[in-house]
């Protein structure tokens, strides 16, 4: 999301066509669920999404623990949710750029692509998260030519090659083990002297003879020409820098919430996660938040779906109360 700013609402902005009961920002599991619930309840709803619909869900090849569905790809689950929302009458605009947000007033205003203005009585923020990048020089240049964030997508390009996996959580260790099906050698580079992953992931990695570990270290530079050739690794305990020739680097160092543009507008914690109450309302009345961008411990499709449901029901109640206030005569 682009940097949002507060901007005044003019009368011309609130046309019938562009006004909704609720605008949902984000089209991942939380946002689509909110869209399904709201539209089914005949609450006029628009989902605005900056990327492809499905969010982080699309990044999961196989979901085997979604209750009631034995096995489904993240893409298919996302596609089903999108179609369910559309069938209930939800409007969805994807691949838009949100250029301004005005949330303080009773009528909320969202501007996309610097020109189209949408207004609503309530907003649900479900902007999700994104893969954390290392931020070292060369990282952007070698994406797709040696650097990958998806083992199942790109693992087979590294048949009999030597690779590095960066990270120490569940994803890093699980993917390191899966990458040994292709790679001749996998080196796990991790910034701490311990892993944050669950014990069985650690055991699996330690018991795999193709995997070795470089602890308390980080990659500080990616080097190559038309493709990645080597990396510079810094040992964090003694400051020593070494250069290692490598064919590929897979990066799994967690996720960061997509809340940069909300700083100064909505209350966030020190991890930039949105603070919400039990109804998933933020510090601004009528502005709710759901999914991976809020403060919480567990980030799963199921928890995002639960958040989307709660935020939708809360937003619907908020909008209904607003409408009642406007139609009921004031008690003197």
């Amino acid at each position: 999301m682009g940097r949002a700013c507060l901007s005044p609402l003019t009368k011309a902005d609130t046309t019938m066509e562009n006004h909704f009961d609720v605008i949902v920002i984000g089209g991942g599991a939380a946002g689509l669920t909110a869209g399904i619930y709201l539209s089914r309840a005949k609450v006029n709803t628009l989902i605005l999404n900056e990327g492809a619909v499905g969010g982080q869900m699309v990044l999961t090849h196989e979901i085997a623990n979604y209750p009631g569905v034995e096995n489904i790809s993240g893409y298919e689950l996302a596609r089903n949710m999108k179609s369910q929302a559309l069938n209930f009458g939800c409007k969805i605009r994807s691949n838009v750029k949100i250029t301004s947000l005005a949330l303080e007033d009773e009528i909320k205003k969202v501007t996309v692509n610097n020109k189209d203005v949408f207004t609503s009585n309530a907003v649900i923020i479900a902007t999700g998260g994104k893969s954390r990048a290392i931020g070292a020089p060369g990282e952007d240049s070698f994406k797709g030519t040696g650097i990958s964030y998806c083992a199942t997508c790109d693992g087979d390009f590294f048949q009999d090659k030597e690779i590095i996996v960066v990270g120490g959580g569940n994803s890093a260790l699980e993917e390191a083990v899966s990458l040994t099906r292709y790679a001749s050698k996998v080196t796990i580079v991790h910034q701490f002297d311990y892993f944050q992953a669950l014990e069985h992931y650690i055991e699996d990695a330690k018991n795999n003879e193709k995997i070795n570990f470089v602890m308390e270290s980080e990659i500080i530079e990616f080097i190559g020409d038309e493709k990645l050739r080597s990396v510079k690794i810094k040992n964090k305990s003694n400051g020593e820098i070494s250069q290692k020739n490598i064919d590929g680097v897979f990066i799994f160092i967690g996720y960061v919430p997509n809340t940069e543009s909300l700083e100064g507008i909505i209350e966030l914690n020190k991890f930039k996660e949105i603070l919400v109450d039990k109804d998933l309302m933020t510090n601004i009345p009528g502005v709710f938040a759901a999914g991976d961008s809020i403060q919480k411990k567990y980030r799963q499709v199921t928890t995002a779906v639960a958040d989307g449901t709660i935020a939708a029901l809360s937003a619907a109640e908020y909008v209904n109360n607003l409408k009642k206030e406007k139609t009921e005569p004031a008690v003197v």
Partner: protein
Amino acid sequence: MLRTNLKHVLSEKEHSELLNNNENVMICCGRMGPMCIPVYESMEELEGEYNNIKFADMEFDSPDAKVIRDLPECSSFAGLPFVVYYKNGKVVKATSSIQSRDQITEILDANFSK
């Protein structure tokens, strides 16, 4: 066959016909994977905005996809999808791995005048 709403290029012959019959062509060669799907989705949306460009996909694992896999422009690629942009049958740009709609639009605008 890829589950998209794009034109599917199923053979080397179809690939050649597509290039012969269209001045500007964008082909996304991939699988139904997380790095590929957002690119297909962007292309499906851009199809309505760029009438002068033919948008298509091709299954990366089909034998005939060697027309893309073996391109010299893709020789250093190690991330799906491989996306190739053609003007008058010649490759003008190729990218590897996921690209945002903005990045794709930038390439289209730079290489194919509307």
